[in-house]
C-alpha cells in the first residue's frame, strides 16, 4: 500500500485501525520467539540454580535419578552425527547442484529437481522407519549391534542432502551469466569454469545451505531416536550405539520430574541457542554479500 510517513491526507479511522492491527499481528509473530526462549529459560532455571551450570559438563555421568547430569556424552553424540552427515552431504549436495546446472541433459533437469524437492519434504519419521527396518539390520550384519553412530550419520546424510542440494542449486542459479560467458570467451574448460569461477562466486549461498543443513542435523529428533540405539555414551567407533541431545529429550520427557525435567529443558535451551547463533550467521553472510 502507499504509505505516507507524515499523514497529511488524514486517513480514516478504519485505516488507522487496520495498520495497528496488522502491526500487532506482526509483532505477535516476532514475539513468539521471545516467548519460546523465555519459557525454556523459565523452565530450565531451577536446574541451573539447583544443579549448577558447570555440573552439566563436569558431573560423573548422566544418571538423573541419582543426581548426575553430565550432558557431554549426548553433546558429543549430536556433534559427531552432525559432523559426519555434513561432511558427507556437503560435497554430494554441491555436486548434485553442479550436475543439475552443467552436466545433466536439459530434459532431465526439471524432473531431477522436482525429485530433490519432494525428498526434502519427506517426513523424518519415514526416513527413520526405513533406517530402522532396512539399514540397522544391514549394519548389524556387518558389525553388531546395528543401531549405531554409522546408522545415524547415514540417515542424517540422506535427510540433509536435499536441503543442501536445493540451496546450492539456488545459489548457482544466481551466479551472473556474464561470468559464464566470460569463461567461455576465455576458452576455459567446463571443469575449470566450475572450479575457479562458478563455485567461488556462489560461496555465500553455498555456506548458507551448509549452515541450514547443520541446523537441521542438530535438531533432528525422530530419525535419530529410531536408528542410534540411545545408549548414553561417547561413541568410540562408528559401530557404537549413542544418544543425541534431541533424542534424550524425547525419550525422558515422559517420566521426568523436578530437576530432571528442568535439566531436559536446559538441553532444549542449549539446542535453541545453537540454532539462533546459526541463523544470525546466515543473516550476517547475506548482509555482507548484499553490501559487498
Amino acid at each position, binding site marked *: *500500500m*502507499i504509505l505516507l510517513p507524515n499523514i497529511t491526507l488524514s*486517513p*480514516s479511522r478504519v*485505516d488507522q485501525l*487496520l*495498520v495497528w492491527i*496488522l*502491526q500487532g*499481528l*506482526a509483532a*505477535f*509473530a*516476532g514475539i*513468539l520467539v521471545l*516467548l*519460546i526462549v523465555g519459557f525454556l529459560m*523459565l*523452565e530450565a532455571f531451577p536446574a541451573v540454580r539447583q544443579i549448577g551450570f558447570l555440573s552439566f559438563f563436569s558431573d560423573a555421568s548422566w544418571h538423573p535419578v541419582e543426581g548426575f547430569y553430565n550432558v557431554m556424552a549426548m553433546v558429543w553424540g549430536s556433534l559427531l552425527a552432525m559432523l559426519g552427515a555434513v561432511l558427507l552431504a556437503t560435497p*554430494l549436495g554441491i*555436486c*548434485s547442484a553442479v*550436475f*543439475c546446472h552443467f*552436466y545433466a541433459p536439459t530434459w532431465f533437469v526439471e524432473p*531431477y529437481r*522436482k*525429485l530433490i*524437492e*519432494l525428498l526434502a519434504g*519427506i*517426513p523424518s*519419521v*519415514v526416513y*527413520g*522407519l*526405513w533406517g530402522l*527396518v*532396512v539399514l540397522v539390520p544391514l549394519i548389524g550384519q556387518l558389525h553388531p549391534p546395528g543401531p549405531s553412530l554409522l546408522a545415524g550419520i547415514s540417515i542424517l546424510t540422506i535427510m540433509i*542432502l536435499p536441503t543442501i542440494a536445493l540451496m546450492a542449486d539456488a545459489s548457482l542459479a544466481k551466479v551472473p551469466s556474464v561470468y559464464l560467458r566470460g569463461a567461455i570467451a576465455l576458452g576455459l*574448460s*567446463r*571443469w*575449470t569454469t*566450475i572450479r575457479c569461477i562458478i563455485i567461488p562466486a556462489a560461496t555465500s549461498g553455498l555456506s548458507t545451505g551448509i549452515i541450514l543443513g547443520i*541446523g537441521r542435523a542438530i*535438531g533432528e*529428533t*525422530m530419525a535419530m531416536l*529410531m536408528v542410534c540405539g540411545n545408549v548414553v555414551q561417547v561413541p568410540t567407533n562408528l559401530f557404537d550405539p549413542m544418544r543425541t541431545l*534431541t533424542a534424550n529429550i*524425547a525419550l525422558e*520427557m*515422559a517420566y521426568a520430574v523436578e530437576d530432571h525435567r528442568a535439566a*531436559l*529443558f536446559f538441553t*532444549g535451551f542449549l539446542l*535453541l541457542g545453537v*540454532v539462533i547463533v546459526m*541463523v544470525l550467521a546466515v543473516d550476517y553472510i547475506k548482509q555482507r554479500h548484499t553490501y559487498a
Partner: protein
Amino acid sequence: MHKSFGSNTDWVACLLMWGIGSVILGIFSLVVGDVVWHGLAGVSWEFLSTAPRDAGRAGGIIPILISTGLLLSICLVVAIPIGLGAAIFLAECTSEHHAFGRVVRISLDVLTAVPSIVFGLFGYAFFSHMLGMGFSLVSGGLTLACMVLPILIRATEEGFRTVPNEYRLGAAALGLSRMTTLMTLLLPAAMPGLMVGVILGTGRAMAETAALIYTSGYVDRMPESLMDSGRALSLHIFDLSMNVPGGNANAYASAVVLIGLLLVMNTLASWVAGHWLKRRMFWA
C-alpha cells in the same frame, strides 16, 4: 554449454558428476521404493476406514486420520489470520530496512530453524501445562501453528510482493482507502501466495512428529472432542515401528499414506504457484 573437453581432469570431473547424480538418484529410489513397495500392499479401503486393533498391528487408521485432520485444522485456523496479518504488514506497511520489520524477519528466520523437539518442549510447558490444556488436540494444533507460522508468512509476503505496483498506484490515485485497497485489490491478487503458504505449511505440519509427542499425545482412539488426546499419522508410524513388535507392516502402509498425502500437497503447491501466478502476470 561448452562441449570441448580440454583435458583428462575434465573427463574425470564429468564422470564424477554423472556418478554422483546417479548415486543420489539410486539412494533415494532405494529408500522411497522400499517404503512404497512394502507399504502399498497394506493400503486398502479397509485400512483407511477401520480403527486400529491390537495396538495397531491389525486394523486401520481412521481415528488417526481424523486426529491428524483435526490437528491440521486447528493449526490453520489459528495460523492463517496471524500469518496473513503479519505478512500484509511486512510486505505493505513497512520498508525493507525498517528496524521493526527487520527484527520481525530475523525472529521468523529463527522460528523456522527451531528444532521441532524444542517446539514440543515449549508446547508442553506452555499450552499443556500453563494454560491447562493437557494432552489434547488443541494443545498440539497450537504448537503446530507456531511451527508453520514462519512458512505461511514467508509465502504470503512473497505473494504480496509479486502484485504489480501499478495496483497500489492506481488505488492511491483513485483515493481508495487502505482498507478498500487491501480487501478489493491486493488480497485477491495475492491469494495464490497465501494458498502456497497454506499448502506448504500443512505439509510441514503433517510431517511433524517430535513436537506432538508431548502435546497432542499418543491415544489412538477416535477423538471425542478437541480437548481429547489424539495421535497424528506420523506419530503412529513412529509408535508402530519403535514400540510395537510386529507393527512394521502397518507402519509401512501408514508411511505410504503419509507420503501420498504430502505428494498431493506438493503438487498442489507447485500447480498453484506456477499456474495462478503466471496467469496473473498476463493480466497485469
